[in-house]
């Protein structure tokens, strides 16, 4: 399916169906992130179950800690 991630359109492979799938796909499972789906922050306990739909707008904020 096609979703928009951080303002950029991305074609996801078929096996990516959830927020967890996105984290795995982009190799950011270890990163500190807050993820929003269609303007709603996704609860971290729902990453595995939260399904994606075609056209979703996903925002991923990386909690970078340098200074």
């Amino acid at each position, binding site marked *: 399916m096609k979703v928009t991630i951080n303002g950029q359109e991305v074609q996801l492979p078929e096996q990516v169906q959830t927020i967890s799938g996105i984290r795995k796909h982009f190799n950011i499972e270890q990163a500190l992130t*807050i993820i929003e789906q269609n303007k709603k922050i996704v609860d971290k306990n729902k990453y595995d179950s939260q399904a994606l739909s075609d056209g979703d707008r996903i925002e991923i904020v990386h909690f970078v800690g340098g200074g």
Partner: protein
Amino acid sequence: MNNRYDRQVRFDGIGEQGQKKILMKHVGIIGAGALGTHVAETLIRAGIGYLSIIDRDYVEYSNLQRQCLYTERDAGEVLPKAVAAKKHLEQINHNGHVNAIVGELSGKLFSDKFSTCDVIVDATDNFETRLLLNDLAIKYKIPWIFGGCLGSKGLTYTIIPDETPCLSCLMNHMPFSNDSCDLSGVIAPIVEWVATQQVVEVFKLLVEDHTALRGTLLYEDMWTNEHISMNVQTLKNPLCLSCGRHRTHPYLSESKKRYRTSVLCGRDTVHIRPEENMKLDMSYMKQMLMKDELPCVDNGFLLHTCIDGHRLILFQDGRALIHNTSDMKWAMKLYMEVIRKGRTCLTE
């Protein structure tokens, strides 16, 4: 005063009244690295009345790529960053009162030096200090402005105690991550972007124009052109141990442990912190090291020596940086051997 602030006084958001407030107010900056130096320079140019800046490190050549204020000479002299920053800030604008603190943030130090701040800017490079700052800022009800950057990514959020979610609220929402050290490096433009976002929020708070505050978590990746402004108000957690109804200031309690060691991210360096009130007799320490025929340089602020090929920097407050190792146990053993040669006392 002539008209050195003329351009910002003409700006409607500040005006004469706003400038008067800026000239009287007190900002704290935690960290005098890349973010801290940019924030401090802009604030001193803007006429901030009182600036307190704390840093635990010294100037190195690798800092000069992105940390403004500092020069090759500061690195050559191994000056503590807080000392070097004060020197340059006073050259830029002698009207501001700059209080430079060489040390590690602690509860006692905060209550002595930062509890009268109107705003505090986070310019640290680690979440351990940020979570301590978060507890302290909430305890003293001082707004503080989170800032972080890495690579070409930057992030900032303004935390108003009892109004917005706090840093713990945000961090508790994120899936567990072992605080792994990222060695990605960083480019100066993203540092400047974060510092700029922090300073403009400081201005709004200083002139008391709270309606102008941004209110969102702001994220930017300057290389991939990603920009996000996220509303995180829903993450405010009434059960948060740092800012909730039954707050226990957990990170403040944790910070009172006797000796704490940490490996500095990407530096192959161990940082050792003794208990809060320790004071080291520096000239006696120097004598003892020289008696053992160890090379020893004293620049009036810190001592550096070299033991078995490891550079060791000792600060007056008993902290040490031990280079070329990330073995905390070994570094602690070396530290104890060295510190026992000296004389220490506890300040009140």
